[in-house]
């Protein structure tokens, strides 16, 4: 959804530049020089809120979150483990995504800042709070605070920007509901090349429950932050007219720790510590048709992610003989999706995903496990009454390889979301 900002242009130049022979206002006519409305200006930040509700149903006995939590190679991945296994996933029936309250403004001639407060029914959390430079030379930009990593394509997009209601499986399984969003610093560089080339490096404290978790308590060792490094590059060839294309490659590596409750008695009984890495690529093609109201617009995007967790068993209360052995997990996945504006304001989309094309785990006891890929197909239909609202119907049909076998599940979403206030325009 492209968004607009109201009442906010800030022309700071006070020189009159209308040109020597410009005419004065004709008498008796409602013409005005546009300076007329300047009195509306203020230095208040732009403030916006996204309200995003959906109805959800699936035909899985224990719920789709449970299925995803049991998926071979991906399941039980999260470091919080133990008794507090909680799956955030949709509930059957009505769901309200957190209210996204966003503030943004230029700070001064050097920096700009923005923050998103995510408010749930019970609590509020800081989704992002970031500062970035606006005046560095040589195409450089420094960003700091808590922010979404710019690796890949969908990671940096907020949920309301997605063309499907839910996240791609590979993102959800590797990085969790919030993607890679952490405290840190990013330095990016727009290269002086004859085509678009943007490259960035990021260092994060290391706080992702699936890939870069950190506990730092006995018996696990401590590691000082920052514990995660990310690098990415995006290239956009010069396509003519309404065509746009962007390729990206990325990689990330960092420390990872896991605590597990093997006998399910509510107490952690074994602990792992080591390194976790992922790498991959993304491609986006957009055709922005000249027709109004989004008719004829076409988007294809795809991302591939491969991850490897290389951990050592640092302690095991039940099987101390394996301590010092390693556990290595290698999994991957991709999604491909296409969305087409088939009528003014109406879009239809399809998405195909596979995860676990590579899916092998080497366990501390010397055994190895491997599993076939899981897949999911989705279809989507949405109606966009204006730039500020959208209604969407989506259905998923998945075939998931879990530790208990194959489970097929159908999911349905009916989503209704709106944007209030002054929300900044979205990036490509």
């Amino acid at each position, binding site marked *: 959804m492209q968004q607009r900002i109201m009442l906010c242009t800030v022309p700071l130049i006070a020189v009159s*530049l209308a040109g020597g022979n410009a005419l004065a206002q004709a008498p008796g006519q409602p013409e*005005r020089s*546009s300076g007329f409305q300047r009195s509306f200006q203020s230095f208040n930040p732009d403030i916006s809120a996204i309200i995003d509700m959906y109805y959800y149903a699936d035909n899985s006995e224990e719920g789709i979150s449970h299925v995803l939590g049991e998926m071979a190679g991906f399941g039980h991945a999260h470091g919080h483990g133990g008794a507090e296994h909680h799956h955030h996933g949709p509930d059957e029936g009505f769901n309200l995504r957190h209210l996204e309250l966003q503030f943004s403004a230029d700070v001064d001639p050097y920096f700009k800042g923005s923050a998103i407060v995510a408010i749930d029914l019970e609590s509020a959390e800081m989704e992002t709070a970031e500062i970035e430079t606006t005046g560095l030379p040589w195409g450089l930009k420094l960003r700091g605070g808590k922010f979404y990593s710019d690796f890949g394509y969908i990671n940096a997009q907020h949920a309301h920007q997605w063309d499907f209601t839910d996240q791609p499986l590979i993102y959800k399984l590797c990085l969790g509901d919030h993607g890679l969003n952490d405290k840190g610093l990013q330095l990016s560089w727009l290269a002086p090349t004859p085509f*678009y080339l943007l490259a960035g490096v990021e260092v994060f404290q290391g706080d992702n429950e699936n890939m870069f978790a950190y506990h730092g308590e006995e018996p696990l060792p401590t590691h000082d932050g920052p514990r995660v490094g990310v690098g990415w590059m995006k290239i956009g060839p010069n396509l003519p007219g309404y065509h746009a294309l962007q390729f990206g490659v990325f990689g990330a590596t960092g420390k990872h720790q896991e605590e597990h409750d093997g006998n399910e008695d509510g107490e952690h009984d074994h602990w792992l510590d080591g390194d976790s890495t992922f790498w991959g690529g993304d491609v986006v093609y957009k055709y*922005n048709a000249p027709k109004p*109201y989004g008719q004829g617009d076409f988007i294809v995007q795809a991302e591939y992610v491969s991850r490897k967790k290389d951990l050592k068993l640092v302690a095991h209360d039940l099987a101390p003989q394996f301590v010092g052995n390693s556990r290595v997990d290698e999994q991957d996945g991709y999604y491909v999706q296409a969305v087409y504006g088939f009528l003014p304001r109406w879009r239809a989309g399809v998405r195909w995903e596979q995860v676990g094309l590579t899916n092998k785990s080497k366990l501390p006891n010397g055994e190895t496990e491997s599993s076939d890929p899981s897949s999911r197909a989705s279809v989507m239909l949405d109606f966009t009454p204006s730039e500020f609202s959208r209604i969407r119907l989506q259905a998923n049909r998945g075939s998931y390889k879990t530790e208990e076998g194959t489970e097929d599940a159908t999911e349905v979403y009916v989503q209704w979301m709106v944007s209030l206030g002054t929300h900044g325009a979205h990036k*490509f």
Partner: protein
Amino acid sequence: MAERLKIVTTTSDLAAIANAVAGDKAEVHAICTGKEDPHMLQAKPSVIRLARDADLWIRIGLELEIGWEPPILDGSRNTRIRVGSKGHLDASESALVLDVPQTTITRAMGDVHPMGNPHYWLDPLNGRRIAGAIAERLALLRPEDTDVFRANAAAFQKALDERMFGPELLKSVDADTLWAKTTDGTLAAFLEEPAIKGKVGGWVAATLPLRGQKIVTYHRSWVYFAHRFGLDVVAELEPKPGVPPTAAHLAEVAATAKAEGVRIILQEPFYSTKAANQIARKTGARVVVVANSVGGQPEATDYLALMDLIVAKLTAP
């Protein structure tokens, strides 16, 4: 010789005027081709690359580009063209603006622009003023070529005046007086004065029979043209700006068009002509499809050619 300045404009119309003013002192790139709806674009990577190297960025302003300009300026990391810098020219600052809301507005009114209607380049007087503003800004960026920019702008304005009023009339009356008369209601009587009669030419002469006519347009994008040439826009096919026509609204428009004796339904080529044809069948009015931007149709090769084309299509028998 100094390196050529790099100018990036949001629309093709601004590029056409910038080209006329900068001459061979600059290379000019436009983001819009003129064939699309300029409200809805993407902050394409290749456009960010263009903005990266720009010395001067020119926009229409009045929030026309608000859905896509900020990520381009931000993504370009080009401090020369940031809003408020010498290299950022908001052309609306030099324009005469209409439709500035006088009451509280809400988004329930559709895509209303709180600072005024952004389609002001369709008033040729604004084209004239934009040329002046671009010349002054270029002079600020490249003072040694000030005279060239001012001379180019003056030549563009002279050519525009001649296309507007005809060279004969300009020999008798100065352009400023004539422009003022186009909207103060005195033009028709003035052109009948003995010393003046028969001298008018150009777009004004061609559109004289249209003065006072009531028209329907698709989007509220023709108010400036109508204002300058004495046309009266009585209805739009869009029920609210940015909202596609509905059956109920079209029925109302048809009734209005009949009651008001509308002869012309005017719209841009990128909109479907279905709704206009429907009204035309009911009322006998003529559907005129014409580009509202340079490049929107093959004949609209520059700003003056665009105006030529609009006048020709409106006055075609």
